[in-house]
């Protein structure tokens, strides 16, 4: 509720500010970009049988409905304000297994809200821009906020760009009650099972973009993520060889994560583009991963394209992973979360992107309001552990 009030307040603030500045400075009005509002919707469904809630064996059936609104308002020719609000509602069979007899506190309200505010300042004389970000996440059993900043600089001919971003995130489990209420029902009353209910994350990312030819450009980016606090999930069970009683998942309280990505986009022919990405990832838990993403947009007309895409991912398990009843009581850390196991996954699908120069349609009532772009795509996801999922997403972009 509080988050929704903040969102409404920020929306009103940005609109009022935009209106005031645009009406009072008529000269600026002529060179201001249009404001944009984007609506995104998605439906995601997965099936699997390795839920971490039930110790690596049990249903992972889950459906997620998400929507997002992104409003970008240029308040000055050199200043832009963006507000993003995402709501996601999910039904999860495994969450209900935290306490199968009643609906537990972790599963009774599966509504997630995320809000992000970004303010960007552009310095056209120096080809640079900087900005600030403020974000918040809220759901019944979890909450967090983040602060961030970024700076980017282009070369004089705009063929190279360097960008640096930094952020700090504080997450907290069990906002309105003690974290012990999130434990699986049979582990309640066993005292303090986790040392903290907070998670701290520090991110630093660097990106370098280079135009290679009139039809090709690339980007190299690296991110440094350091996390500490409660990095396990307080309702994941782990079963051991020596006993029937489960224990709560336990993972080290510090984690360093290093993803490195390389992107290459190439306008291969008059109607065919190649968008590619490779990511190498390594972390202090022992997980190493390689991800390849390939998209082939084919332009049917200058404004309408169809694109097939695929994403292949392979990873090694963290050193604390083992399956159902495979762990030993002598181990210091343990998890049966198959998201952290050795696996490969493939995702493939297709979509279309439509953005005509004269807009798809527009309403002319006082202020012009036009549907500028429309994109929709479907993907099927299959993981070597048996999990499979489908996702359909659409994006409608308006200008006003």
């Amino acid at each position, binding site marked *: 509720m509080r988050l929704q009030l903040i969102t409404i307040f920020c929306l009103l603030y940005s609109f009022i500010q935009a209106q005031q500045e645009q009406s009072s400075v008529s000269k600026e009005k002529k060179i201001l970009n249009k404001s944009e509002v984007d609506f995104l919707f998605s439906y995601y469904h997965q099936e699997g049988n390795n839920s971490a809630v039930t110790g690596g064996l049990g249903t992972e059936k889950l459906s997620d409905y998400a929507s997002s609104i992104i409003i970008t308002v240029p308040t000055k020719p050199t200043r832009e304000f963006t507000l993003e609000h995402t709501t996601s509602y999910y039904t999860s069979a495994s969450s209900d297994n935290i306490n199968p007899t009643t609906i537990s506190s972790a599963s009774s309200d599966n509504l997630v809200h995320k809000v992000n505010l970004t303010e960007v300042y552009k310095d056209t004389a120096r080809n640079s821009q900087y900005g600030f970000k403020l974000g918040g996440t809220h759901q019944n059993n979890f909450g967090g906020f983040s602060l961030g900043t970024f700076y980017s600089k282009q070369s004089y001919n705009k063929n190279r760009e360097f960008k640096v971003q930094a952020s700090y995130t504080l997450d907290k489990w069990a906002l309105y009650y003690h974290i012990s209420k999130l434990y699986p029902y049979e582990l309640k009353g066993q005292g303090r099972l986790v040392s903290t209910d907070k998670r701290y994350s520090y991110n630093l990312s660097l990106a370098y973009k280079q135009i290679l030819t009139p039809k090709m450009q690339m980007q190299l980016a690296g991110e440094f993520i350091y996390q500490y606090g409660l990095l396990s999930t307080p309702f994941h069970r782990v079963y051991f060889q020596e006993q029937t009683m489960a224990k709560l998942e336990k993972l080290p309280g510090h984690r360093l994560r290093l993803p490195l*990505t390389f992107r290459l986009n190439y306008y291969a022919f008059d109607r065919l583009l190649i968008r590619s990405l490779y990511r190498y990832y390594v972390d202090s838990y022992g997980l190493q*991963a390689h991800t390849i993403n390939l998209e082939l947009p084919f332009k049917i007309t200058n404004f309408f394209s169809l694109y097939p895409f695929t994403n292949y991912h392979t990873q090694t398990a963290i050193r604390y992973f083992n399956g159902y009843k495979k762990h030993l009581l002598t181990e210091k850390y343990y998890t049966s979360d198959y998201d952290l196991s050795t696996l490969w996954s493939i995702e493939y699908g297709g979509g279309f992107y439509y953005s005509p120069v004269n807009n798809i349609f527009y309403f002319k009532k006082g202020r012009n309001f036009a549907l500028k772009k429309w994109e929709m795509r479907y993907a099927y996801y299959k993981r070597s552990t048996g999990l499979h999922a489908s996702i359909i997403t659409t994006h409608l972009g308006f200008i006003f």
Partner: protein
Amino acid sequence: MKASIIRSLFFIALLTGLVCCVPVKQYQKTYLNDEEMQLGERKVAVFEADFHSYREGAVGGTIGNSGSGCGCN
């Protein structure tokens, strides 16, 4: 073996990219200015990124600073 092949391809692509760059004038950027040629993720892909980060152990490096969230769904 597979990992080393992927890594080698990555470095070859990177070196090729860095070596073959030529100065490009503003009037030559018609193709580069196409919205689908931009190096960032599509908005729909950013929106879907959460589910990848939950179902796989690797995060980050694709959409800027990795965000908050419990990932418990």
